[in-house]
């Protein structure tokens, strides 16, 4: 989003009856959920539950087989560019232009997102300093560790101050200091001005600390959704940790 643009209104993300099929295999089956303004929504699930497929559909990498996805009212299929302009995305694996440096990569991202030079520079400086990326800022990405690449992706996601963050295992490979920084940043960031975040993880402790609501995916189907208290009640698990609740709700009968 360009600086000076009024904060968007409406729900950051609405998914209606989303289905994604890869040939015969249905990865996501009639999924419906919404991320509310000011909310960090945790998307939990085992390996192969459909989290990444859902996220790829949101960011425009995979076409839905059925259903709709809207980002602040913009359909990701019919009006993909408008939707993408409002999303800051961190993929699960560190997918970057290996032949570029972090500076060159961020220049590219900032240019595509039409950020003014002064704004992009100021924000890049702030985030790079916070994540202690000074030493690697002009080194080829191919030479960077996974953790450093993840930091570059995080900076690229936040650079344009998007109203919706879509984060697929964003804390992978980060050192403890950066994990703490990221949690604080995320909580502060989403709390203001109608923003939202979809946070995919299979680390229950992090979801428990960060997320206002959680959706549990299992075999492509949303098994349960709500705050931790709601899910505990549903799973009849008293004050059990989210991990216990998750296992209870996804056990195969």
């Amino acid at each position, binding site marked *: 989003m360009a600086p000076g643009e009024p904060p968007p209104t409406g729900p950051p993300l609405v998914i209606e009856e989303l289905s994604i099929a890869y040939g015969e295999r249905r990865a996501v089956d009639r999924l419906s959920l919404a991320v509310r303004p000011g909310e960090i929504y945790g998307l939990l699930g085992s390996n192969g539950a459909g989290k990444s497929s859902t996220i790829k559909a949101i960011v425009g990498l995979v076409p839905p087989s059925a259903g709709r996805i809207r980002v602040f009212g913009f359909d990701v299929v019919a009006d993909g560019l408008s939707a993408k302009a409002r999303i800051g995305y961190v993929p699960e694996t560190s997918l970057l232009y290996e032949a570029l440096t972090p500076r060159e990569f961020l220049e590219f991202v900032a240019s595509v997102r039409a950020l003014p030079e002064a704004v992009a*520079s100021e924000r890049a400086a702030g985030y790079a300093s916070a994540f202690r990326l000074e030493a690697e800022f002009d080194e080829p990405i*191919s030479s960077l560790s996974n953790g450093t690449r993840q930091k570059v992706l995080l900076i690229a996601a936040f650079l344009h101050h998007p109203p919706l963050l879509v984060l697929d295992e964003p804390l992978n490979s980060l050192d403890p200091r950066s994990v703490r920084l990221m949690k604080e940043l995320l909580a502060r960031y989403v709390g203001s001005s109608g923003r939202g975040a979809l946070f995919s993880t299979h680390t229950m402790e992090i979801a428990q600390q960060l997320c206002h609501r959680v959706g549990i995916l299992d075999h492509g189907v949303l098994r349960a959704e709500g705050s931790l208290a709601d899910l505990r009640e549903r799973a009849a698990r008293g004050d059990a940790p989210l991990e216990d609740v998750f296992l209870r709700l996804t056990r195969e009968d």
Partner: protein
Amino acid sequence: MTWREARRISSVAFGEVCLQAVYAFRQGNLPTSVDTSKAAALARRRVVQSKILVAGVLTLITAGGALVLHLAPRLAEGPFFGVPVAVPVVEAGVLTGLLSLDVAFLWWTGLQVLPTLLASGVLAVLEPLPIDARTLGRAAGLLYLRLFDLPAIAVLVATPLFVGEVLGPLAGIATIPGVLAAIVFALALALLTGRAFVRRVQGSRGGGGRAIVRWAYLVLWLLPAFAMFAFVVAAGGFFALLAATLASGPSLARDALLAAFPFTFATLPPLFAGGRAGFGLTPDGLAILCAAAGSYLAVAIGGFSWLMGAVRRVGLAPPLAAREFVPPRFALATHGAARAVLTKDLRISSRTPGYAFLVLLPCLDAVVIGLFTFVAAPSSSDAREIAIGAVTTAALLATFFGPAFFAIEVNAYAYGRTLPLGDRAIVLAKAGLIAAIYLVASGLVLGITLLRIFEPTRFVAFIAAELPAVVAAALLELGILFRRSRSRGLPVANLYAGAWWALLVSIPGVVAAGAPLVAFHLLASSSIDLGLAGMGAVAIAELALAAPLALGHDRRRPI
């Protein structure tokens, strides 16, 4: 562990290298829409097709060399060399050129292939496994050799066959040591220079000054590709020097020539064909020849043994040497989307030899042809004709290779497509890059030939008149590719895959770039100004047709 085990490991690793070379998953491409069980087989097939292509080119070069060998008696007695040259000397000279081309071509292919091997990450996966270092080294070496097996076999079979056909079976067999040595030297050179390249270029830091250094290294890297052209230009002088040196009798120069690779091996076939008298070789000359040939073979055997361990070491070496920390400035330079894509492509090209080749080849080719005007053009009008030829070549090369820039989008595709970047910006950026390459190449020709051509205005008009056609050709090719990618998923158009399709797409582009040139040549016989006007009209008309086709589709269309 044994050679058999190493071969088995290399076979499995080769499948992975093929998969990565074709689908570029480690470089950020999305999983393919092709059934994964078929993807590996498809990737292997594509790599084999590329190897067959390279093998075919080498076979053609060898056949061409044999044809020139066949003409050696006529060349020797004719005025071609300016001085009398004995037939065996001509034959040795031709074979010298042939072996040099084999080395240059395999070396250049190796430089293209090595980054793909390293980027596949295969060696890093094998290293922690419970396999002894020697077997791992052999497996890595065999893996490297597998990337060249068909071209190497082609040249190893074709050379004795074709030379034997011309000079006799013994002479044909006598080529084998030279060819073997050439193959080993080429692969070793590729590994050595590739290692230096990976550190200096791929591992180079950002910054404008360093980009210039990277491009300078890449120019050096490209020079082997010009070996054929250089040899053709210098052939006359080369043969005259050969003849004079050999005729001078025992001397340091003669001894040095006899001991120089590949001339040492190039003399063997004519000698075995009974041409000793033509060389005027004394017993000590023969002794030098034999000693040199034996030494080179020993070095080749040592080189092969070195390769078996070196590939593993190169593959596992850190990409950068440790260096001093320089506090960065965090200022980011931002531009429009199309310019951002173009800048990104140039930066990636400056660290990736395959793409750098696409940028540099038209430019270097233009420089070489421009310099040729000083060698071969007796008059200003001749120089102008050659310069026009150079610009024509630049236009055709830039558009012929243009679709390959599409392959850069495969890099980090799974991230790049999540950005709000429409196809139109990408197409404009790529077309802009192709046009820029054409203009730089043409500008280089203009700069070099300014001293020879005294009417630069018309030459500048020629360059300007062709420019819309180059842009039109680029838009046409890229528009076709993008439409295809949208209907079938992004095609993986890199060195190993989709090459046939990329070549097919180049045909309409080359036709579009060539049409105004044809118009010029048809009309210029009446008047050069008429030719220029006609050329410009055709080019502008092409651009008017191509632009809506390439840019007119809905940029908000779904993926």
